[in-house]
């Protein structure tokens, strides 16, 4: 081997040893420092809100496939661990109910289907379905039907094409109800 090559190789070896020594030294120093530092005390001094205000949470969330980690989670097992009763004890139901528009909820109920498809219909029929009531309903509905038919004929006979008022002004809101 050429003496020059030998000395170059020796220098390389020394440099590698020095680098390894420095790395070990650094690791040791960091280890000592980390053990010496009270992380909780440091974290108490950190203003997490200010830190989080700087972080754009939406950006990584947009890139993240949320479904993938969710698929790996056993939600049933997770839910089994939750004490729903205790959770519900923390919920102020009055505040929750105040937020709900009961009238809106009731307005969404299809009363026709409710009466037709539940025992409620039978209860109404038994409580109000007397023969006299039934006869009265039939007579009135037949009269309304006959009125409508006669009106239809008269409108055709008079060739009336303009819209006629269906109800007096004060009763038009009643008429508009379904």
């Amino acid at each position, binding site marked *: 081997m050429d003496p020059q090559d030998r000395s170059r190789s020796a220098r390389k070896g020394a440099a590698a040893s020095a680098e390894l020594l420095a790395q070990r030294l650094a690791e040791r120093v960091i280890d000592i420092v980390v053990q010496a530092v009270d992380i909780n005390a440091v974290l108490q001094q950190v203003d997490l809100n200010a830190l989080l205000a700087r972080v754009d949470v939406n950006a990584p969330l947009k890139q993240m496939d949320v479904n993938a980690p969710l698929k790996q989670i056993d939600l049933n097992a997770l839910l089994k661990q939750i004490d729903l009763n205790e959770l519900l004890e923390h919920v102020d139901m009055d505040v929750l109910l105040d937020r709900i528009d009961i009238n809106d909820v009731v307005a969404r109920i299809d009363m026709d289907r409710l*009466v037709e498809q539940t025992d409620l219909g039978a209860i109404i029929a038994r409580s109000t379905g007397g023969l006299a009531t039934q006869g009265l*309903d039939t007579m009135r509905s037949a*009269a309304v*039907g006959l009125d409508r038919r*006669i009106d239809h004929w008269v409108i055709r006979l008079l060739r009336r094409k303009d819209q006629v008022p269906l109800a007096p002004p004060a009763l038009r809101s009643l008429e508009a109800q379904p």
Partner: protein
Amino acid sequence: MSVRNHPSQWVSAQGQYAGSASRFAAYLIDLVASTIIYSLALSLISFLVEIVTGSPVSWHRNDIVVLITYVAWQFVYFGFQWAGDGSTWGEALLGVQVVRADGRRVHPWQGWVRSLTFPLGFLTLGLGFLGILVHREHRAVYDLIAGTAVVYAWDARAARYRYLARQAEPVAEVAAASPLPNPAPGEAPPATEG
């Protein structure tokens, strides 16, 4: 000719101007009711006069006193009820009501004026009633004079629910009386004959 209509139409008719058939039927009922009451009243008076005087009293339809008192009775019968809540017995049965032209509750004086001018319909040989058919608001001549109109006022919504309930009742009864258990999921329902 069928005059059946769907229950939803009943509700939509609520508050609308009442038509000729309803009004005519109501008038016929009132005519029968008022005549029966008048006849009973005459019979009662005859009975009382016979007890007091001892001689029987007989009334004839052609008697001018009977005719005048009958017309006066008709005026009171209709006027009193229209001035009250705006509907006679017949109108209450048919579910129609006399209201002001704008739809509000009728004034008592309007009820009496309507009753007083009601005979105009007959005196004009029926032309006074023609407004019920051809007027845009179904108002007869006495309605125009008294400033009234007739509207449907029965609780059609409740009637509709009663109708739907009657439709549902047989289904509910059959379901309750059925001894057969409900088929399990995936199991075929029991076969029926026919």
